[in-house]
């Protein structure tokens, strides 16, 4: 795609089409003009300004260090604009039958926005917000101004802020990040990648985002104060850091903390035993088997790649797990998540870890009752039973008995939140 694809449709307004990886974008001509990028702009080190063939004119595509500085002049949508979009945004979820969603990395301004949306009655579905650990000091300054303590200490009453919905919004736990993404080669592994680092570095294992001392200290504080953690960890070294942190912090399975490791993708079998010991639960990301499975095989080899999001092995150990889309990283489509857990087929058709495929009911549980359990909501959500909330979706056929290959054809007919219809397929 180039500016020529965008210009006919957007001749007057600047348009920036950001790639899902957030590493680059395509600008239309108005956008390029505002960014001050033209034929005379040198290509920065570590970046890319794609040029029109046979000329130095930018074609529209900007990557990495050419893309990054654009944010210096980026207009930000106002709160009113964002509030007006809440209805449409939630329709993405309700139209797929989703009635509880996770806001998985809530910065302080995001939380303030969500609280406003909730208080104005704009939330149609339940939203579980996970405040970012880095924003915790600022949140404490705001909500507990009299608290005296170290930078990563929490008031004793912090746990009271978590776990209760108010106008469909609740704080679920704290979100931590330990590494990046495997396809971006920014995850953190114990064994080197077969293909080297992003810049061709040999003996490359990725890197942690924070030193273990820092991770251990905050984990210990969250365990001590009774706050559930949701930690982003993709590579096995990052997962080791989470395990170390929770173990040193004193987490034990008997406490029923349900600490969640988001992604838990490149696990080693021995780490499942640590999950059992400490009561850690993975939120897997089986969609990766389809979207990036072939890339993973190239980067870490077939054997390691085959144990990505190991649902069957986790199930055999009695571990409960969720599954997720990381929307907008992959589409918001529960059937796609379910299908990838059942089939584990890559784009090129390789079945990635055939022994880790699970049955349809297990795949469905990871999107319903077992995620409700992550949120400590298994008594009110996640299955159809007397006394539970009528958060329901009506599908045009039974996903348990449908041929897995045909799961994506299933249509949502209607979605109910607490007994009220919130979405209906156009007649």
């Amino acid at each position: 795609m180039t500016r020529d694809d965008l210009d006919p449709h957007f001749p007057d307004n600047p348009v920036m089409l950001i790639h899902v990886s957030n590493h680059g974008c395509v600008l239309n001509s108005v956008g390029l003009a505002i960014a001050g990028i033209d034929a005379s702009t040198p290509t920065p080190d570590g970046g890319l300004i794609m040029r029109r063939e046979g000329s130095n004119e930018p074609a529209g595509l900007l990557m990495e260090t050419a893309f990054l500085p654009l944010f210096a002049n980026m207009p930000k949508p106002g709160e009113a604009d964002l509030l007006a979009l809440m209805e449409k945004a939630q329709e993405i979820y309700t139209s797929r039958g989703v009635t509880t969603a996770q806001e998985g990395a809530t910065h302080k301004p995001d939380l303030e926005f969500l609280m406003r949306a909730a208080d104005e009655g704009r939330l149609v579905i339940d939203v579980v917000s996970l405040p970012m650990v880095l924003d915790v000091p600022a949140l404490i300054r705001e909500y507990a101004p009299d608290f005296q303590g170290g930078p990563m200490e929490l008031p004793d009453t912090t746990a009271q802020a978590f776990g209760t919905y108010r106008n469909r919004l609740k704080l679920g736990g704290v979100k931590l990040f330990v590494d990046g993404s495997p396809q971006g080669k920014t995850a953190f592994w114990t064994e080197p990648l077969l293909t080297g680092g992003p810049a061709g570095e040999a003996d490359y294992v990725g890197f942690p985002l924070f030193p273990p001392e820092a991770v251990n200290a905050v984990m210990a504080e969250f365990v001590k104060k009774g706050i559930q953690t949701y930690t982003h960890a993709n590579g096995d070294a990052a997962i080791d850091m989470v395990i170390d942190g929770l173990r040193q912090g004193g987490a034990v399975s008997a406490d029923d903390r349900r600490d969640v490791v988001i992604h838990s993708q490149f696990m080693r079998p021995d780490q499942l035993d640590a999950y059992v010991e400490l009561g850690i639960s993975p939120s897997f990301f089986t969609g990766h088997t389809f979207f990036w499975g072939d890339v993973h095989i190239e980067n870490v080899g077939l054997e390691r790649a085959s144990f990505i999001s190991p649902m069957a092995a986790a199930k055999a150990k009695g571990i409960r797990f969720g599954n997720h889309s990381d929307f907008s990283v992959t589409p918001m489509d529960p059937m796609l998540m379910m299908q990838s857990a059942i089939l584990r087929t890559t784009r090129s058709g390789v079945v990635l870890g055939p022994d880790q495929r699970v049955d349809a009911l297990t795949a469905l549980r990871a999107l319903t009752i077992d995620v409700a359990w992550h949120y400590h909501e298994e008594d009110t959500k996640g299955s159809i039973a007397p006394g539970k909330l009528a958060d329901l979706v009506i599908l045009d056929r039974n996903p348990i008995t449908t041929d897995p290959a045909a799961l994506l054809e299933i249509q949502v007919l209607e979605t109910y939140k607490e007994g009220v219809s919130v979405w209906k397929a156009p007649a």
Partner: protein
Amino acid sequence: MEGTGMTLPVTILGGYLGAGKTTLLNRILTGDHGQRIGVIVNDFGALNVDARLIVAHDGDTVSLANGCVCCSAADGTGEALAGFIRRADRLDRIVIEMSGVAEPARLAQNVAAFRLNVDGVIVLVDAEQLPSQLANRYVGRTVARCLSQADLIVVNKLDLAPPEALAETGAALDRHAPGTLRLRSVQADIPMAVLFGLERVGSEVPAWDTDHAALHVTWIRENSAPMSRVEAEEMAADLVARAVRAKGHVLLSEAPDQRHLYQQVGRRWTLVPDGSWGAERAATRIVAIGIASPADRSTYNLVSAGGAPKDRQTQPF
């Protein structure tokens, strides 16, 4: 975007946990150094800046009495940089504190992408803990890469390290950062001139107390004969080996009418055109903060600037 923040130099401050970065940042944010510095804090936890020195608090940004501004990188270093570029007219310099596990080279690349000038990568190390950090299974590789990408290394907490540990740290630095100059410090007490450079070119030399002078010697190199570009490169190679910071004008024989500006932090140096000589007498004048011994003075035709105690011999770490 053109023309914004073009002249703002950026200092990248790296180093693993406990090396003294926060102590140093507190000095910068509260010190009486006359520079308006925008500091981007990029690590877990918050700085405990004395509340009496804070004049304004706006979201993630704190303004201090000495004209410095501190901003969190919670929304990304790029966002924070962009914020400083928007107020570039009210800043003299940007300092970015790196997280203990980030890579300076990658950050330097991103800074350059904002068309800002990377002034130098200064990495602090804990004189006692460095060897064990290098051996850590999670962060060992990262700590080593950070050292190898430093322009200048500050070996801090010298007072707390037993001699054996010091020797081990020295050996580790020889291995991971051969040829990179090292300063020694206690409680991250580094002269601001080392961090942020020499205010003006010429005969003026920044003054600092004699404790500092015991560690760092200031020299001026002056030569009215033009030098060739090759000779300038040789001079740079000499300075890189012994000056932690240097700045000055160079008279090049290839372009005698054009003034050139030489700037150096540790092993990073640049020589760029810098207008015409104007009223200034055309000559090469370099002010350097070095760890040279008196013997070097004669060898390199350097002139002691401040006299008396400043030519005390220092031992490179």
